[in-house]
């Protein structure tokens, strides 16, 4: 199976210069691969670096050393060394990310929010609208809300809009950071179904799920993370 993500000897620490220079390591020599059609779940206690790793896979966080290769246009590209415009191109076409919370931009309607990533690929408005509508319907966002900006929506509604936006493009690689944290059981099931569909079409998926049963349902493989400090103590 095609390798879509290849992480080699990844190290990440946080140094808080304005708080006495306290520095703590979070990721220590992390190495793993993810292939197309796999759903890999990051396992570990709170603070073990799961979100840090996921954000690093999106080039949102900057590692101190190591390589993060992702497949883009047939080649493996190292995100750690890539120029900003290349990273943006990779995010546009090959790398999707669903965060835990929706970042709201004033004045932009729910439909536009969801359509945007597909529009960015040059897809015509009508096709984008149809796909966005389909996803919003599946995620139980009433049509009456589609022309409103999501700023006044409930946390769960905002998150479902966020998920729709994150999945409207069929990214070859999908990163999910606690996508179901604010969702009820019914909507959770919808999201699980969407994730399974993505995997079925060959996406490589890396996810963090706080719910143990979700991890059971979705994981083809687990990657355990342990905080380096704890490792040292052990």
């Amino acid at each position, binding site marked *: 199976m095609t390798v879509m993500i290849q992480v080699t000897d990844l190290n990440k620490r946080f*140094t808080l210069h304005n708080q006495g220079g306290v520095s703590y390591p979070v990721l220590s020599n992390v190495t793993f691969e993810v292939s197309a059609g796999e759903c890999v779940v990051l396992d570990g206690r709170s603070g073990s670096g799961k979100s840090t790793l996921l*954000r690093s896979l999106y080039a949102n966080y900057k590692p101190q050393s190591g390589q993060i290769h992702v497949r883009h246009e047939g080649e493996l590209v190292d995100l750690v060394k890539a120029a900003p415009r290349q990273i943006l191109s990779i995010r546009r076409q090959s790398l999707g990310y669903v965060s835990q919370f929706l970042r709201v*931009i004033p004045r932009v309607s729910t439909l536009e929010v969801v359509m945007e990533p597909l529009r960015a690929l040059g897809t015509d408005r009508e096709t984008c609208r149809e796909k966005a509508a389909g996803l919003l319907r599946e995620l139980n966002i009433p049509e009456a809300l589609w022309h409103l900006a999501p700023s006044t929506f409930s946390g769960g509604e905002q998150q479902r809009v966020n998920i729709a936006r994150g999945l409207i493009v069929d990214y070859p690689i999908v990163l999910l950071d606690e996508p179901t944290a604010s969702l009820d059981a019914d909507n959770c099931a919808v999201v699980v179904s969407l994730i399974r569909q993505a995997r079925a079409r060959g996406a490589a998926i890396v996810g963090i799920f706080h719910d143990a049963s979700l991890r059971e349902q979705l994981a083809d493989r687990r990657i355990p993370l342990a905080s380096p400090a704890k490792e040292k103590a052990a």
Partner: protein
Amino acid sequence: MTNPAMAMTQEDLAEPLLKVSDLRKLYAPGKGVDGVDFELWPGEVLGIVGESGSGKTTLLQCLSGMLTPDSGRIEYTGKQGDLLDIYGISESQRRLLLRTDWGIVHQHPSAGLRMGVSAGANIGERLMAIGERHYGTLRSTGESWLREVEIDTARIDDLPRTFSGGMQQRLQIARNLVTQPRLVFMDEPTGGLDVSVQARLLDMLRNLVVDLGLSVVLVTHDLAVARLLSHRLMVMRGGKVVEQGLTDQILDDPQHPYSQLLVSSVLTP
């Protein structure tokens, strides 16, 4: 992560649009621009952030051909692919560039508008400067741009001093974009405007940048504006660039002590 959408540019330029090498312009030690290097590519919005006195406005003035640097080079790739040394070409060539291929949006609209002539005349000026004489064309272009920046076309013959601050700012944008520039310099484009007016203007800028494939150098002290509009950020302090990179990475995982200070100081409502 919501990145500003980037225009898919048809041309695949092997050269960056703007290339700045070891730029210096100092008023006093640490005040001004003290050795700045960067490249700007087509369709990119580069945000320059930093506190007062960091040198960001001086940098913008040097970049936009308004202030001759002490040393260093600024090279611009023209429409025909020709590389121009901005301070190597003549004053009149620089002025032509500023009126056609480039735009400047000032913080105070009065600095970028002719307050004594009509809105329509403001928009038409750059077209006339490059030879457009046909009244009908000038009028219709004026009207279509007023629509584009959401100003009632009935105001085309009104003087800018009768407009609100937000409208004046939108007029300034229209005035600059009428010649389809490839590179626009903006200095605190939403500074001093009410928040609701700001939101509308930012929305417009976001869309125009993508629709027109603009490259932008944007100076702002407002990190929220930087996050919304820019693809890349440069953090300036004491005339130097202390950190640069992808906007969301700089704001979410700042490495340099000063970047960390800047980001942690921002209040979120």
